[in-house]
């Protein structure tokens, strides 16, 4: 049993793809390669691990946003889809940060 509403949505999404220019995708690809080159350059700077981790993670978040927004088409999705999926993901990942203070505790206080 086919669902006509599903088929209609699939046809509409395919129509959206037909109207997208390829230029933004090539630009995003170029930006991602440049950001990767910057990351490799930073990898060879003798920085404190915590500072280096913060900078590299910020760059990775920018790269992830570009991939999700353009390559994964999220930029063109309905607001409800966009905010519900992304907010729940960020919330769940942020909850895992609860473990980090423990890592710093070991680092600064030592293990007895």
């Amino acid at each position: 049993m086919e669902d006509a509403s599903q088929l209609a949505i699939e046809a509409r999404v395919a129509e959206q793809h037909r109207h997208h220019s390829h230029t933004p995708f090539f630009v995003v690809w170029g930006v991602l390669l440049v950001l990767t080159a910057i990351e490799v350059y930073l990898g060879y700077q003798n920085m404190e691990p915590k500072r280096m981790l913060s900078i590299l993670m910020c760059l990775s978040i920018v790269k992830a946003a570009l991939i999700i927004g353009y390559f994964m088409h999220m930029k063109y999705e309905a607001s409800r889809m966009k905010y519900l999926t992304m907010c729940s993901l960020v919330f769940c990942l942020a909850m895992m940060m609860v473990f980090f203070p423990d890592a710093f505790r070991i680092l600064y206080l030592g293990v007895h």
Partner: protein
Amino acid sequence: MAEAAVTHDVAVYEPSLFGTYSKKIGMWLFLLSDSLTFGALLYAYSYGRISITNWPTPFHSGSIVNATIMTAFLLTSSLTMVLAVSAAARGKESARVGWLLATMACGIGFIVLHGREWTHLISEGLTLPIFPAVPGQDAASEFAGVSKTVPQFGSTFFTLTGMHMLHVTLGVVYLGIIALRKKFIPILLACWLAAWLLTPAYSPFHYAAHVLLITAIVCSVILWLKPKVYDAADTEVAGLYWHFVDLVWMFIFPLVYLMSTKIL
């Protein structure tokens, strides 16, 4: 509505709350759950990196160049995947298959380079207790001490990158099925045989090759139960999975490789 569902081949249901089709929502839900798996592994690695002061920095410039090329392969594969989705939406079947094959080629390039990196690290003594012993391995190998002094490095490194490599492998198979359907099954079986017979018995890839056999069986059953021509929507959903694999690597590469670079 209910009558239509019973009496006609095409039913009309309420449109989705999310403004898109169910297959895509299903894939997004899977990717959200999978990102939590990778999130936990990445957090575990970061925890060790921060809390252990003598964390090893084993990656020479050769490894960094290798990992940078792997990153370029994945980024390029995402671009070719976008072009495959676009070709599918425009109804250009040969272009769709061509771009999908290009994406798979980049993915295979990534797996081969990653396998080479693993083989190098294992031969230098960075290993896990579950890996078979490498015959004739020098006790004074470069990383022989690392597995004993900081065992967290090997366990988190191999778990995280191994999990990602598994995802890339499954992604290549997924794209192969979307592109070539049942014609891909013999190719997959040939790859399994080659990977199994050409790798030495002490290599973890000798055993990991059986993943290809399992996927060949699963894909055969799926194609037998539900044979269909994969359309633009199927290609887009496969693309979401592939971009996710690329996305995860954007965190693994800086965290695992660049944070453990050996600066001379």
